């Protein structure tokens, strides 16, 4: 090779410039929550800077200014697609801090498990549907939106709200399951299985969809672990890490379910893992509902779970604690705790510090999509502009959770 050839630089010689383009925050794919600062060489992404923070609301600081109970509505607004999981994660961390985690009645544990899995289903429906939508398959999106609406119908029948549920309480639940719950779930599952089939037929073996998802946004196991991937995206790489299995909580060590694992770590495997998880969630719910015990749903200690109105009016201790809990907040002993749970998008954990009062001293969330958003640049560099879309969809960045 001559020197002249070695020094030849196409971009220098042809006087071309790289196109610098701003994708987001106002862009159909970024929904106002994130900005990608792209350097393009034709259609190829040379460099991608990710800027987050457009939905930062100071959630963690907010928590320090209210009582322990008052944080629940804020947790709803982290990953709003699976609000109940955030409720559960927060409640269980506080319970761990108070040392009352093992006092939860059995029915309460069952209800939490069931509701967590419903939240997971709703989240996966949203995520996969939105991914289909952004690849142009609007019909498939609508099928999963319908499935999600039906799941939300169930959640609504349990706690009265569809999206931001605010259902779980420290040491218990806001309300018990409705009477016809089992029949309702059965009916919804029948419809949802049909919708799942339709969605599956429209996309999973669709050549266009496969071409868009296969070998795009892939990442190796080592890198995924270094970046701190968890949840479906890590499992798509082939790591069988699921908090429900690794550090079982609630009922998960007693239930029979599979943890789907991919092999390539690309978008299509992420898609397949999520599709399978929907089916596994249905399995978990069906098992839990079969063996759902009767009994109380709250911890019987009025210092932990705000006593019922009836109790307040009849029992003196309950009235005292109702008053004290309202005025001073539930008293959590001095200490700190971290409790990992398997959110639909990865490991959701609350790190709480208490100075022994009625308010959290410090509240910190580990949002799963934050870790994955870091890797966006790494995953899309060298890929086509169009590949950014499925990659971004599959890491499932939820602004509320990522920016807090």
């Amino acid at each position, binding site marked *: 090779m001559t020197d002249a050839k070695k020094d030849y630089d196409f971009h220098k010689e042809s006087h071309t410039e790289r196109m610098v383009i701003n994708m987001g925050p106002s862009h*159909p794919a970024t929904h106002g929550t994130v900005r990608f600062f792209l350097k393009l060489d034709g259609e190829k992404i040379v460099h991608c800077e990710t800027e987050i923070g457009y939905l930062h609301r100071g959630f963690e600081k907010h928590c320090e200014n209210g009582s322990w109970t008052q944080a629940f509505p804020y947790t709803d607004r982290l990953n709003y697609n699976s609000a109940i999981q955030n409720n559960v994660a927060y409640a269980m961390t506080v319970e761990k801090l108070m040392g009352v985690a093992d006092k939860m009645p059995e029915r309460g544990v069952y209800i939490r498990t069931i509701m967590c899995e419903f939240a997971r289903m709703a989240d996966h429906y949203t995520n996969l549907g939105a991914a289909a939508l952004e690849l142009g398959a609007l019909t498939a999106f609508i099928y999963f939106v319908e499935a999600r609406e039906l799941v939300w119908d169930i959640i609504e029948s349990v706690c009265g709200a569809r999206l931001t549920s605010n259902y779980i309480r420290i040491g218990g639940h806001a309300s018990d399951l409705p009477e016809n719950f089992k029949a309702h779930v059965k009916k919804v599952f029948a419809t949802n299985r049909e919708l799942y089939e339709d969605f599956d037929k429209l996309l999973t073996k669709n050549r*266009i969809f496969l071409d868009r998802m296969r070998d795009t946004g892939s990442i190796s196991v080592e890198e995924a672990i270094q970046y701190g991937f968890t949840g479906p995206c890590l499992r798509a790489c082939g790591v069988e890490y699921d908090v429900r299995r690794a550090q079982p909580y609630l009922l998960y060590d007693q239930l029979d379910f599979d943890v789907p694992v991919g092999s390539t770590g690309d978008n299509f495997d992420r898609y397949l893992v999520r599709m399978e998880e929907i089916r596994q969630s249905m399995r978990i719910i069906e098992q839990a509902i079969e063996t759902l015990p009767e009994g109380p749903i709250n911890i019987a200690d009025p210092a932990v779970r705000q006593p019922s109105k009836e109790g307040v009016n009849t029992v003196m201790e309950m009235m005292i604690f109702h008053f004290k809990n309202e005025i001073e907040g539930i008293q959590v002993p001095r200490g700190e705790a971290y409790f990992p749970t398997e959110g639909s998008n990865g490991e959701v954990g609350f790190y709480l510090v208490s100075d022994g009062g009625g308010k959290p001293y410090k509240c910190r969330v580990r949002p799963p999509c934050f870790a994955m958003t870091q890797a966006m640049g790494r995953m899309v560099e060298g890929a086509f502009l169009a590949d950014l879309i499925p990659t971004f969809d599959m890491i499932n960045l939820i602004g509320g959770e990522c920016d807090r």
Partner: protein
Amino acid sequence: MFEYSYIPPAPLLPEILEMMLKIVFIFTMNMGFFAPVLGYVERKQSALMQDRIGANRADLFGVTAGGLLHIMTDAIKLLFKEDFIPRGADKLLHTIAPLIAVVPALIAFTVIPFGGTYVLWGHKVNLVIADLDMGILFIFAVTSLATYGGAIAGWASNNNWSLLGGVRVAAQMFSYEVAMGLSLVGVFMVFGSLRLTEIGMAQENFWHWGIFYQPLGFILFFACALAENKRVPFDVPEAESELIAGYFTEYSGLKFAMFWMAEFLEIVTIAAILTVLFFGGWNIPFVTLQSLVSFFGFLGDTGSQAAAMFLQVAVFWLKVGALIFLQMLIRWSLPRFRYDQVMNLGWKIILPLALLNIFLTGLFILAAN
């Protein structure tokens, strides 16, 4: 001495009247009927496929007419929107680009026959505006002009997203133009003509329909035509999740409506071309014009011809409608290609297959002779 020979002038008035009526009919069908109604049909059809209700709210004194009034509200909305030209944009090019996109879509219809030849009041009526002997080439020539509309719009908008869309339009259209032309060569070889009226006439017998002679040609041409139409799955130039709206990101109001209309008119044009080339045009299966005329014989000479004409024209539009439905079905079922995958499909799959189709057609014609 001079010899005067008197040549009587051709009866010009009926000619002009016939021409005017045909133009008015086609223009009304396209601009007055299909362009607005397809917007409604698309909303309603997608709603049907997606288990929704679809547009049904616009009402006039409490009458909603099943959502048909949305056509009117859409038009009013687009008329009264601000006509926005971004700073730094080329005003002239930005303004004429939508015109360049919409006009070819209208002109293409001039050579497409929407009925056969009939004798009314002793006057021969050929139901095509311009019966060119290279009709289909004229369509190719004119529709390829529409590419400039998209490309210029992308360039003139002074927006990087538009520019990317404009480049994609140019590349995609160019790639598929070639394959589209080649995919139809087989049809010309079979029918031995480029004149669309002749091709239509040759398909009077049901078993002589183009689809039976050229099944591969049909699939290839249909794929290319969908790509030229720039709708899902080939909507990479406007891919809304990637490029916001591609080359018409910076368009609003009526200018935007023109791009939108061009798309819908192209759908109709594609359906009409497919009908004429592959689905027997205006011919009713197993019913010849002769038998139709004799069936309506009790209406007199002109009456029977007119009845046959109305029936055949209706059948033509019926076929067009069915093919439009098919195109919408595809649009609402499939996800979108990636830019390079569209190119691969065009150059590496459709183009060789089109050449193969020509080769096979040649072999068969040789064998048949």
